[in-house]
């Protein structure tokens, strides 16, 4: 046996990081997909007219797949950043399990497949919105905004806000005030949600040289911006209550949840770094966790109202 063969075999047997199926699934960011599935499903279910369960299922499946495809494209492009950040270093591309080229190929093929299938299953308005969302997340956010401006989260948040609009369009074939307000709810929620995270994950963003607001404008300014965006979020969330898709459940939930979120944002704004360091960013972590619940319950309330109307 030649040295070359022996060496190759040893490498193969001891440390070859060949990807398993799960690594390709991880490329699609399944946790992000769950939020996409839920908000798109609500958009689809509250839309007037309704659709057959099979078509609805197919629409949600391919909206989720489109979101996954944009996640794969993001992982392909951001591999250098991901390798530096502790939170993302074990992702399939930076860890070396999946070659970057495969992530790109998977992302492009799944993008095309999801858009075409959504168009065939529902309508081309929904498909065009999905295509734009993938483009916005992969190109506008990942390739441009993320590395260019501290407002990356604000503008880039639009990509995450589109799923309920696509779900709605899959049924109605158009965009309405209610779907725009659902978009607005996620769009305005994204900055305080991510900035709360950035406050207690500071070293990661510093290391990766991502111009997060905490890095470029300081932590005090970030706290102020969290409060500003939360204040701006409230009228959007409450405004949705006065559209035909919402009802008493949503109105009640929105009043309580927005009061709580506003209080959390005020608490963050009132604190400084000394206070935050002292309790291990307890308030920031609490607000971040609550922000997840906030969005889930708003859309859950819309769903509850839709069920209420049917009963």
């Amino acid at each position, binding site marked *: *046996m030649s040295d070359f063969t*022996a060496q190759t075999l*040893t490498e193969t047997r*001891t440390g070859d990081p060949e990807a398993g*199926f*799960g690594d390709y*699934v991880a490329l699609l960011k399944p946790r992000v997909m769950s939020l996409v599935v839920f908000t798109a499903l609500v958009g689809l279910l509250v839309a007037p007219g309704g659709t057959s369960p*099979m078509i609805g299922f*197919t629409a949600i499946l391919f909206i989720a797949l489109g979101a996954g495809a944009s996640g794969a494209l993001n992982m392909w492009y951001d591999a250098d950043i991901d390798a530096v950040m502790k939170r993302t270093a074990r992702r399939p591309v930076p860890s070396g399990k999946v070659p970057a080229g495969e992530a790109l190929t998977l992302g492009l093929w799944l993008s095309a497949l999801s858009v075409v299938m959504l168009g065939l299953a529902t309508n081309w308005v929904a498909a065009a919105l999905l295509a734009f969302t993938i483009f916005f997340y992969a190109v506008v956010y990942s390739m441009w905004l993320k590395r260019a401006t501290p407002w990356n989260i604000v503008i880039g948040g639009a990509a995450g806000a589109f799923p309920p609009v696509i779900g709605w369009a899959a049924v109605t074939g158009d965009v309405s005030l209610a779907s725009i307000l659902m978009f607005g709810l996620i769009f305005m929620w994204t900055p305080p949600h991510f900035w709360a995270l950035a406050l207690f994950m500071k070293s990661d963003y510093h290391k990766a040289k991502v111009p997060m607001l905490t890095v470029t404008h300081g932590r005090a300014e970030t706290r102020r911006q969290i409060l500003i965006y939360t204040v701006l979020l409230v009228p959007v969330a409450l405004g949705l209550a006065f559209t035909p898709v919402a009802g008493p459940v949503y109105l009640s939930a929105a009043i309580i949840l927005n009061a709580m979120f506003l209080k959390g944002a005020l608490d963050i704004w009132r604190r400084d770094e000394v206070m935050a360091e002292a309790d291990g960013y307890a308030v920031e972590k609490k607000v971040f966790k609550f922000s997840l619940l906030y969005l889930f319950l708003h859309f859950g309330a819309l769903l509850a109202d839709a069920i209420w109307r049917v009963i």
Partner: protein
Amino acid sequence: MAETTRPLTETHEIHKRRFGRNVGTALCLLGFCAVVFGLTIAKVREGGLLEANDHVPRASVLPITEDSQ
């Protein structure tokens, strides 16, 4: 170098991973076929009394006239 003395027929972790990947891909393809099939059924049902053009005048698509009654 002790690793190299293993028999070549032995199934290695890498083969298990490849097998898992192949099974996963096969299941995805099967799932996709099932979705396309289900979607076709749903679309056909939704379409109601749609009839494809067979290039022959059919009674069901001709306008109703006194002669045809």
